[in-house]
């Protein structure tokens, strides 16, 4: 789960990391009032859960409350990568001397957290990593020992941080590591971490992504979830425990298992079709879950045909068939459907669907070819 910048920075501040003064606003008038309260120059920042807001014009500096009102009005009307901006963060503007990058993430190969730091923060860190990898300092943390002071001295000296800032940097780094641990983060990042003209280290921007699997430990984080940032289909999928990602194609897919779902999308593409979504109903999915999945797919107006591919192991094919029938009663069968049921109770499942005017297939290749044809043929 991704958190908004303002949420991440609030958590950072609770862990002793200096952040700019500021607050979040839903309306341009609120933004103006916050600017007035802060005094001086402010920066108005779109709060959306996608990158690239800067280049999209979602971050603007305002010298006066009136300018803050104007900028907030514009930004709150924007869409960034199809996501409408519903909140802006109004922060006091910092006088920046130096911009540093500092982040902590999981290194799956090393099976350890890794700290990543660079003297070249602020701009796209991935660009820096690609062009000048020697400017990126990596330091693993032993998960049993935790972060040790000498590691921070190593980083500080490698990014040529002036010595007067070492103590402040250590405090921020320990704070960020504690954020990472205490929230079960997969990414905790400060970019840029700035040295201000007043010689203070301040976390100007913050990103925090937490491990969905660990949310049960952190109920307070679950309340920060912004379902405004999900499409209604994503919200419904999450509530029903389905794994769903909308895509651009015209063939809807309902599959059990993530690997098989990807393989099903791949074979659709192989035969010239384009998948409209990834949807994994999971293991042992019952009729209700299947019905919800079908409703979610059929709500997408781009979908021209549907492929249901179930390999019954824990999942029973007859249960799946029942779910399909239930959903069709509600939403109506407006599209051609190809169904492939293999494994546990496949006969019963096929029998249930026999009267529902569906195309059936035995092999995956057969199913893919049929659904591509039904959607209008290979493009």
């Amino acid at each position, binding site marked *: 789960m991704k958190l908004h910048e303002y949420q991440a920075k609030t958590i950072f501040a609770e862990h002793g990391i200096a952040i700019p003064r500021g607050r979040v606003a839903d309306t341009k008038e609120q933004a103006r009032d916050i600017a007035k309260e802060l005094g001086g120059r402010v920066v108005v920042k779109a709060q959306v859960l996608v990158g690239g807001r800067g280049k999209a014009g979602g971050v603007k500096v305002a010298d006066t409350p009136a300018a803050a009102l104007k900028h907030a009005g514009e930004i709150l009307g924007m869409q960034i990568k199809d996501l409408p901006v519903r909140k802006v963060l109004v922060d006091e503007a910092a006088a920046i001397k130096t911009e540093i990058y500092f982040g902590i993430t*999981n290194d*799956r*190969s090393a*099976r*350890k*957290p890794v700290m990543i730091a660079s003297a070249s923060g602020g701009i796209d860190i*991935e660009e820096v990593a690609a062009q000048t990898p020697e400017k990126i300092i990596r330091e693993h943390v032993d*998960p*049993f020992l935790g972060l040790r002071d000498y590691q921070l001295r190593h980083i500080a000296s490698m990014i040529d941080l002036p010595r007067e800032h070492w103590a402040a940097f250590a405090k921020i780094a320990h704070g960020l590591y504690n954020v990472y*641990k205490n929230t*079960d983060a*997969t990414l905790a990042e400060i970019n840029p971490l700035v040295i201000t003209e007043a010689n203070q280290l301040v976390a100007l921007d913050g990103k925090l992504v937490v*491990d*969905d*699997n*660990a949310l*049960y*430990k952190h109920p307070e984080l679950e309340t920060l979830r912004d379902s405004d940032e999900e499409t209604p289909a994503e919200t419904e999928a999450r509530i029903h425990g389905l*794994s769903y*990602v909308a*895509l651009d194609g015209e063939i809807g897919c309902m*599959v*059990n*298992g*993530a*690997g*098989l*779902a*990807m*393989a099903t*999308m*791949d*074979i*659709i*593409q*192989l035969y010239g079709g384009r*998948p409209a979504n*990834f949807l*994994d109903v999971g*293991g*042992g999915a019952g009729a209700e879950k299947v019905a919800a999945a079908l409703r979610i797919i059929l709500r997408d107006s781009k979908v021209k045909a549907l492929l249901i591919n179930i*390999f*019954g*192991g*824990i999942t029973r094919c007859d249960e799946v068939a029942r779910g399909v029938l239930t959903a069709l009663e509600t939403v109506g069968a407006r599209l051609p459907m190809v169904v492939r049921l*293999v*494994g*546990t109770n496949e006969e019963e499942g096929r029998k249930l669907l026999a009267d529902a005017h569906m195309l059936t297939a035995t*092999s*995956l*290749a057969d199913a*893919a070819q049929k659904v591509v044809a039904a959607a209008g043929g290979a493009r």
Partner: protein
Amino acid sequence: MSVLVDQHTRVMVQGITGREGLFHTRQMIAYGTQVVAGVTPGKGGEWADSVPVFDTCKLAVEATAANCALIFVPARFAADAMLEAADAGLPLIVCISEGVPVQDMMLVRPYLDKCGARLIGPNCPGLLTPGGAKVGIIPGHIASVGTVGVVARSGTLTYEVLHALKQAGLGTSTCVGIGGDPVNGTSFLDVLKLFEDDPLTEKVVLIGEIGGRDEEDAAAYIANNYGKPVAAFIAGQSAPAGKRMGHAGAIVEGGAGTASEKIAALKAAGVRVARHPEELPALLA
């Protein structure tokens, strides 16, 4: 000896009295697997069908000489279950449970290594040695006895491949479902080595997916004079970069770990790569 498990393996099921634990225990026993003990805290002294239940792994091992743990407990108890099995001295631990937090696994994995325990999973379908033993949730009837070693990250995709092999008249020596979590136990590479040393395995099928570098590491090993022919399929060629695909492992990390990179690495290593799962049997010919 087959790979990892056979008819002599003595399985201890952690979470045996749960819905999934009990269902699959019955399936395993029906398949001929020796399930000798169950563990459910607070239910020691009871029975799960014909299997005695213990409060702790240590007690189960002392009483039954179990030598393989199979874990079905809810995700929040899975880390503890793995550690307990390792502490009780079990050399092989298969964790079916899905949803174990990554930071938990970063503690569990090195501890298990220190104990000398091999972990399969978590978030995996387990092991199937047709005609020998089934330790996990892979449906037994979809594979027949044979000489193809199968190693895979995902569940139902694996079943699809076993099914396709059987349809084509090809049997399986052992199928190892290693799971797709970012931090797990046994890797593709580990299983390739086991198959290399296994006289009953003649050919190997590797079923990978996007994310991580496990397939690339396997390719590098195969390139260095691997002794048996390998065919592979990589799922996720059509997946957009950076979208989460259900498996925590199936995230394309910073441009690396894409399907095309994995396929290129495998091909360069001499592996025949299928365009879709049903092509695999033909590539083994």
